[in-house]
């Protein structure tokens, strides 16, 4: 293998990785916020909210992300809605991670003993306060491994948005391959960069987990 091309094209990989990180960061951030919302809807007492959340989660999980990306970027132009590639990428990653996060949060919230909520309510706290101060902090701790898993999935899945022309890591690797007529090594380089990102992330989450469980 010859990685000599890197001396000339390394910046394609760093710029691509930076964009991948941005996409993943926003996807995870908005996905988490929306995911908590959908999780709360799924455990709500109000039937219509539960129904909406279930339909959303089933549809998003039951359709390929690549199709979703194309619908958002190409399909929506039919209705006069034009998102930039970057925006489309973030939207696709967000709606996906929201669906998976919702299930993680729902399971995490359900795993907390009902007595915790009852104790909070018996003190006079509202449902929202009980969630915020009692249920979610405990659920979050239990869910950390699953959340970390989801972060890693998002980083990897963000490579799919290369298909709508976002110059993230995967897109740039292929650009380098076509410029240099080297088909193989640029992909290995991209894989290595993805691996470094997910590996560091999983180590950081492991540290956080240990720190929380030490309490």
């Amino acid at each position: 293998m010859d990685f000599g091309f890197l001396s000339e094209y390394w910046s394609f990989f760093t710029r691509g990785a930076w964009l991948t990180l941005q996409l993943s960061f926003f996807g995870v951030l908005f996905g988490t916020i929306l995911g908590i919302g959908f999780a709360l809807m799924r455990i709500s007492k109000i039937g219509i909210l539960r129904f909406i959340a279930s339909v959303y989660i089933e549809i998003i999980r039951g359709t390929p992300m690549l199709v979703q990306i194309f619908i958002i970027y190409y399909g929506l132009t039919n209705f006069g809605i034009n998102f930039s590639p970057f925006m489309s990428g973030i939207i696709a990653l967000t709606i996906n991670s929201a669906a998976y996060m919702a299930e993680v949060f729902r399971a995490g919230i359900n795993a907390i003993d009902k007595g915790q909520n009852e104790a909070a309510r018996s003190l006079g706290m509202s449902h929202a306060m009980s969630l915020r101060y009692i249920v979610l902090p405990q659920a979050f701790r239990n869910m950390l491994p699953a959340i970390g898993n989801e972060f890693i999935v998002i980083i990897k899945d963000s490579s799919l948005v290369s298909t709508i022309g976002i110059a993230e890591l995967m897109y740039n690797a292929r650009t380098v391959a076509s410029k240099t007529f080297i088909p193989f090594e640029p992909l290995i380089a991209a894989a290595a960069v993805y691996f470094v990102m997910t590996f560091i992330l999983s180590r950081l989450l492991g540290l956080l987990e240990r720190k929380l469980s030490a309490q």
Partner: protein
Amino acid sequence: MIHVQDLRKSYGKHEILKGINADISKGEVIVVIGPSGSGKSTFLRCLNRLEEPTSGELRFENQLITGKQRDLNHIRQRMGMVFQQFNLFPHMTVLQNVTLAPRKLKKLGKEQADAQALSLLASVGLADKRDAYPASLSGGQKQRIAIARALAMQPSVMLFDEPTSALDPEMVGEVLDVMKKLAAQGMTMVIVTHEMGFAREVGDRVLFMDEGRIIEEGTPQEVFDHPKEPRTKLFLSKVLK
């Protein structure tokens, strides 16, 4: 202080409470006894509406608290509750457990809430555990903290749902002692328990429940020494050996 009229509670077709009537006066210690499945815990949990009554009327300090209730949270602030399983918040220290509700609901400052909590912890004999997490405490200690946590909201009534049933025998005494002290201070208390000796010693009035009804009520002497109802006699003959 608490007025209960024809309180009923059903799960599906199964009726747990079949019309409960009771009046609880200020400063009174009511002990509810009865076989398991008699509905005594459900009755207690209906009083602060952790269980939603199916029908009937509840009044607390002359305020109707059944039906659509907007300030249920305010009412609960004045009704402390202690659970069989303690339900301390495991992600918080003892001090945080006790101060959380006063700080968030009564908007007490940290120093004021801490001072109040420390005096409560001292009164249950656990001031030295202020920075401990619940996982490091024994069952008896947890329950005493849970009592302090409920008292921190300065409730006008305390509800106890089998507070010693999950404890090892050697820890029952320390929790009952705290409850006796509280009763002696004039706290209004409703206690569901299997501790007959305690019921007799501390109760002003004993309610015997069976199959969703109050079968017999009276002073501890009346109920324990001269029960009138056959079911009360049968129950007492089983538990007072």
